[in-house]
């Protein structure tokens, strides 16, 4: 694996996370529990899609094969996606969506904060731009998790179920492999494992405020960020996401 191959992988991981999660969030459009949430969810999706354009745009540039960000988004099959499994999990109820969002946002924030000091100035630039948006995302998703966790007994029950369901997808975000080692060596990106302590501290604090109990088991599903084994959900998402580009190849929209 050359340095640029690792760099391309890394950028796909960043961009596929935002693409896939952005898509999931956008599925809520017009269906949220209250108008303000419709607006907020659309806003989050919009930020994530914007970040996708930057990450996948840079990935395409590094690859140098003449592909565009859109080509990467719309013309790869599931196995070439590098998002973590958490991002592709279905929306479930609003609580599950917001729990997924918080678990991701908290990681995302730490990652972007570190990337803002990347040795690659393009990476640092994208991170600096994104980190402001994501700081707002995490503020919102954290407030919602706390509010619903510490709300009615019904909302508490649902949030605890969401946490139990999704916690096994947390570990994958902090896995390290050869790509991460190459990125760390080049000073482009931190070793994800190095972010775990800060993440755990934030999570512990948030869940305490939300009166929710973190599961004992640290068992973690994996296979998304390496592409080895996504869940069945991703393929179904792609049938929608990529429909027009697949059905009308080469058209301009």
């Amino acid at each position, binding site marked *: 694996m050359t340095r640029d191959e690792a760099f391309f992988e890394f950028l796909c991981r960043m961009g596929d996370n935002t*693409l896939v999660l952005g*898509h999931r969030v*956008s*599925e809520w*459009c*017009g*269906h*949220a*529990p*209250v*108008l*303000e*949430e*419709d*607006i907020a969810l*659309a*806003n989050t*999706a*919009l930020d994530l*899609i*914007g970040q*996708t*354009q930057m990450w*996948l745009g840079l990935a395409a540039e590094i690859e140098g094969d003449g592909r565009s*960000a*859109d080509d990467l*988004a*719309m013309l790869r099959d599931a196995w070439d996606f590098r998002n973590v499994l958490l991002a592709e999990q279905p929306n479930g*109820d*609003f*609580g599950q969506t917001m729990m997924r969002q918080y678990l991701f946002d908290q990681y995302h924030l730490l990652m972007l904060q570190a990337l803002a000091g990347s040795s690659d100035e393009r990476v640092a630039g994208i991170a600096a731009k994104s980190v402001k948006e994501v700081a707002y995302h995490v503020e919102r998703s954290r407030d*919602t998790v*706390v*509010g*619903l966790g*510490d*709300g*009615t007994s*019904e*909302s*508490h029950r*649902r949030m605890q179920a969401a946490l139990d369901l999704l916690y096994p997808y947390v570990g994958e975000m902090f896995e390290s492999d050869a790509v991460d080692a190459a990125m760390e060596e080049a000073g482009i990106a931190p070793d994800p494992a190095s972010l775990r302590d800060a993440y755990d501290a934030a999570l512990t604090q948030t869940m305490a405020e939300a009166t929710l109990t973190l599961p004992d088991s640290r068992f973690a599903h994996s296979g998304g960020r390496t592409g080895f084994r996504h869940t069945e959900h991703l393929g179904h998402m792609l049938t*929608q*996401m990529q*429909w*027009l*580009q697949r059905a*009308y190849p*080469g*058209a*301009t*929209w």
Partner: protein
Amino acid sequence: PEKLTAFQARIDAGEKIEPKDWMPAGYRKTLIRQIGQHAHSEIVGQLPEGNWITRAPTLERKAILLAKVQDEAGHGLYLYCAAETLGVSRDELTEMLLDGRMKYSSIFNYPTLTWADMGAVGWLVDGAAIMNQVPLQRTSFGPYSRAMIRICKEESFHQRQGYDIMMKMAQGTPAQKKMAQDALNRFWYPSLMMFGPSDKDSVHSEQSMAWKIKMNTNDELRQKFVDQTVPQAEYLGLTVPDPDLTWNEETGHYDFTQPDWSEFFDVLKGNGPCNRERLAARNKAWDDGKWVRDGLLAHAEKKAARRMAAE
């Protein structure tokens, strides 16, 4: 009656009526209905376009569409706020939407079937909406007028985006061009219906015009819309699905075929292609969201209680 005369005099003088001012019950009632329906239309209007967000062809188009649907929710919010100044709450209005007591614009009961429909909705539906709304910036009720000013600015942006999609399609591959024509075929008459039946058949119009709640007749606006839209269609190289459409040198307007008003009344009665789906979607969002609203409210109360206890 004296109050009434003074009220009408203020309106005639172009003054704005503000929420705390005295107003006739009929004025208030008509405004609540009109602003409420308009707000509901923005909310339900998220659905036909939301239908294509997950299938947008490029990241850029997806972002633009998301932003647009977000704007619509925002418009809903302004309008509910304007209605609330008249003494009706957003939740009350919502419940009247959900149980069918209040209406929303019938156009949103038509399905969006191809990507070109995202263009047609922007170009024709937003275009017709703007035609209705621009004069309402001068409406007599202050909060409504101010909401319309904000909304019109964003809507005309949306319309340009819609036209841009149509342009790309019309200049695209043969399949894209076919898609664009198909979208125009399906949305032309429903767009003409957006101005409502001919004023001859409309009972409330006269009083509303006097109160400056309604600024133009339905037929005037429809004609203006046709006159504006036909050249745009020609520029796109698309054919308006009306064989009798002709330029009338004498009147300086296009002569055109009226939409099928029986279809209009069918849709209004609930028999449009998507009435059921639209209302079902909004009801589901509301019902499924109850625990969320309750949970957040309970939390806010707990927080307030804790703050009180700490003081």
